[in-house]
């Protein structure tokens, strides 16, 4: 399995501001995903980060609110824009490596919006 790191691990932000979360993998991966996990709830897929092209967003999530970049096969960023307290969640990146269907998760970024 790949080693996945995320930065920052946690942050406290003011409403109306934006935060960019980074996801770095130690090897090239086939797929990268971004999830949100609200307090006490399960994982909700935000989008699939596509290398070299626009991300594919799930219903209820839009690019203006959650812009995503994936410049290469080992790195992606998720920006949470114009934040409100409802955006307080854990944000997780996950990857799928070649030859498997299994998703491996990063340690997560805990975001609190005041």
């Amino acid at each position, binding site marked *: 399995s790949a080693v996945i790191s995320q930065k920052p691990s946690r942050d406290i932000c003011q409403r109306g501001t934006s935060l960019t979360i980074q996801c770095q993998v130690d090897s090239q991966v086939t797929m990268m995903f971004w999830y949100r996990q609200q307090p006490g709830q399960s994982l909700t897929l935000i989008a699939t980060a596509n290398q070299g092209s626009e991300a594919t967003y799930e219903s209820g999530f839009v690019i203006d609110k959650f812009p995503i970049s994936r410049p290469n096969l080992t790195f992606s960023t998720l920006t949470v824009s114009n934040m409100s307290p409802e955006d307080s969640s854990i944000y997780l990146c996950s990857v799928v490596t070649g030859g498997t269907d299994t*998703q491996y998760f990063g340690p*997560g970024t805990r975001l609190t919006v005041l």
Partner: protein
Amino acid sequence: EDQVTQSPEALRLQEGESSSLNCSYTVSGLRGLFWYRQDPGKGPEFLFTLYSAGEEKEKERLKATLTKKESFLHITAPKPEDSATYLCAAYTGGFKTIFGAGTRLFVKA
């Protein structure tokens, strides 16, 4: 609509008291069933993948089984360090994965 339901929502056990967690799924075309362990404030840690009914996988005190409608995670003689949230997820292909809400397990010494 594809759905994954886990029960119970929370389970409290005494150390050494074996039990099972349930994951029932209603999906069109199951390609795989994943189990993860998640500790508070951390990302999910992969445990098992099951691909076909009748398959079993074991790791230390954990054993996962799969039928055509549900999966079980059996915990034998649990220890306090097994306390965590256990997530199951149904994979239907095309990297589409549906997660259950999880079972929070508390093991008391």
